[in-house]
């Protein structure tokens, strides 16, 4: 028993897709696309769009968990412009971001470059640097509270070896925010290092070898080959760092509660305080809207810097 395959006649004209066929195909593709997107869209609508719209609406009310509420227009925003605690919180958050982001990115990159070499104990160092990232912030904050303890803390104990007087790290208005920044920088290193490490391993070996053949020094190789290759990753790390630092809360909540006075009060803590301690949900919503705008502005500036860097 045999099967004979009929050979198609060579002179049979191939059917040229008509505009109608193309349209049907495109429609089918679109439908499939929407079907695949639907779960994500539904998720975004429920967990992002509705809350964002709700926050926008609530920010125009004086809702405070009571039976009655009323529209106040932009009254909350006007009050915020005069609220010294809010302005202090905004300033502390911006300052925190401005200090923590570049320093942590620079340290993370330097460490990642180091971990990208063939050195002994590489696995140990990679694990050690990543541990803070997977550790609960409350646990980290508790450990740092002990480190900063003025009486029996490690920080003062270490500095006393060099003859320095004990410092009241978190209780002194001059050192409280910088002390938190140190913890923030340390805590955020792990994630950044892992991302940089992955990016460094993706830098073209051909380009690096070419640079070697051209007699480039290590520094020249880094500046002219490695650094430009890291552009997209730098942007990603920058964006996630901006969002992360603007949302700093648990660290401050556990370590200082915004004190002394309001010297370490940050935006999310202020929002939390207004919403869940002072029960001013409308006011806190207005703060949230402003925080979203500030984060968007920072990301916009980051994009501009990225473009300028790429064009260079």
């Amino acid at each position: 028993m045999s099967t004979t395959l009929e050979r198609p006649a060579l002179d049979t004209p191939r059917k040229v897709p008509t505009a109608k066929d193309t349209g049907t195909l495109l429609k089918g593709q679109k439908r499939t696309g929407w079907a695949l997107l639907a779960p994500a869209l539904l998720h975004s609508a429920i967990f992002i769009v509705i809350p964002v719209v709700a926050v926008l609406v609530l920010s125009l009310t004086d809702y405070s968990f009571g039976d009655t509420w009323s529209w106040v227009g932009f009254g909350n925003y006007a009050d915020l412009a005069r609220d010294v605690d809010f302005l202090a919180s905004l300033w502390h958050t911006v300052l925190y971001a401005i200090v923590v982001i570049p320093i942590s990115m620079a340290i993370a990159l330097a460490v990642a470059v180091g971990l990208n070499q063939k050195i002994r104990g590489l696995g140990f160092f990679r694990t050690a640097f990543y541990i803070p990232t997977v550790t609960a912030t409350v646990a980290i904050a508790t450990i740092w509270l002990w480190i900063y303890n003025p009486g029996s803390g490690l920080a003062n104990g270490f500095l006393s070896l060099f003859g320095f007087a004990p410092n009241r790290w978190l209780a002194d208005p001059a050192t409280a925010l910088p002390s938190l920044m140190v913890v923030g920088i340390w805590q955020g290193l792990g994630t950044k290092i892992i991302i940089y490490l992955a990016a460094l391993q993706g830098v073209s070996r051909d380009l690096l070898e070419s640079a070697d053949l051209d007699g480039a020094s290590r520094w020249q190789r880094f500046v002219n080959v490695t650094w430009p290759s890291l552009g997209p990753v730098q942007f990603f790390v920058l964006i996630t760092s901006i969002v992360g630092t603007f949302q700093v809360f648990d660290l401050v909540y556990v370590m200082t509660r915004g004190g002394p006075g309001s010297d370490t009060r940050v935006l999310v803590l202020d929002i939390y305080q207004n919403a869940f301690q002072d029960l001013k949900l409308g006011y806190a919503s207005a703060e949230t809207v402003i925080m979203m705008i500030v984060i968007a502005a920072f990301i916009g500036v980051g994009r501009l810097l990225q473009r300028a860097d790429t064009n260079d």
Partner: protein
Amino acid sequence: MRRGVGLTVLAAALSVVVSGCGSGVIDKSTDGVPPAEATGTLRVLIPSFPPSTKGREAFQNVVDEFHKTYPKMKVEPDFATYNNLNEKLATSIAAGIPYDVMVTGVGWVQPFASKNIFEDLGKYGVTPDFIKEKSTPALIPAVTYDKKLYAYPLLADARAVALRKSAFIEAGLDPNKPPTSLAEIKVAAEKLTKRDKNGNITRSGFDLASATGFRQSFTTFLASTGTPLYVGGEPNFDNKAGLDTLLWIKSMINNVQPYGQTNAAQQPLVLTGEAAMGIVNGAVDCSDKGIGKKNCDDLKFFRFDSGKEIEYVGGDLASIGSRSHHKDAAWAFIQTMVNKPTLDAIAKLNKKIPAYKDAGNSPQAQSNPLSNFTANGLQYAANENEVPSNWLEMRGNFDIQLTQAVLGQKDPAKVLHNLAGQSR
């Protein structure tokens, strides 16, 4: 058209979100239903029982007693702390499942009553005379809003002052004549403060118990001058007495006590010997598990008196949620909690004084000298008094702004003026 529908859906969803904040239904109302037939879940928000084994056992005893009247009602406790009480309340209201019984503290009742979150207890016969007869009269202002009573006192959280006799004798002071006025305390505290060769304070002369904020200590010191913080919801501190008190605190911090001083156990520093004199809570454990008899014998207790003898008295105050569907059951539950054995048990768990009339004879007051002293001094009670309806907001404002004044970041007079302006 489609866009219009989409927007309508979004608006509807949003209105659900917003209206969800207003009301919610869990159970059918049991009010008016015979207790033996009432079914549902009674949600109880209570910081008075620590979530330890002992605390849960004590709470279960209350539940067992309550079930004798309401056998079919389920009781769902939420063992909150005073730190997270507001967020628990806020999220329960926002989620549309408010608590039926809510235990809060001094300063909570007026704001929540003004938002119609607490039920007027007048309909259950709770009047000032009723509290005078059965409970702690000193807490009447704390449970009153707009001449109505919205809470029933469970515990009194009294504070006194303690001194170390040995430290006094060492400094050439007479421990039998404790300094009671602010001026006297400052003079004594400066003599009692010990420093190392670099000038760092190694033993505080006076513990203001203000590691995280000066609100309560300011209230206490001010009240000892005969000036309550608020009168009828109006600020009473933007005056000479207020300014003198704040300047006094400023002159004490980093002079007789470092700012922010606290210990890991959160114990009053005079009990641990880290301060020679200072504010203490309402109980001390003189057993070997606590500070020991020797330490206890070294303590002498007294009250502030800069013209008026006072002791700061907070409290645990039980209210009924105005949106509760089990108001009768909630009142029955409160009544179960306020029987003497239960209050004695809660008082012991919290190192506070049971808020019944003869608290001086309570087992808690008889168990240690500090509780005995504070329980017998409840007639000297002082606290924030008749706070304004935005007190929850003012609590934080006081803590922040007084600290800024004490640390020299802001002008004390302007701070008081500002706080007075923010009170409404």
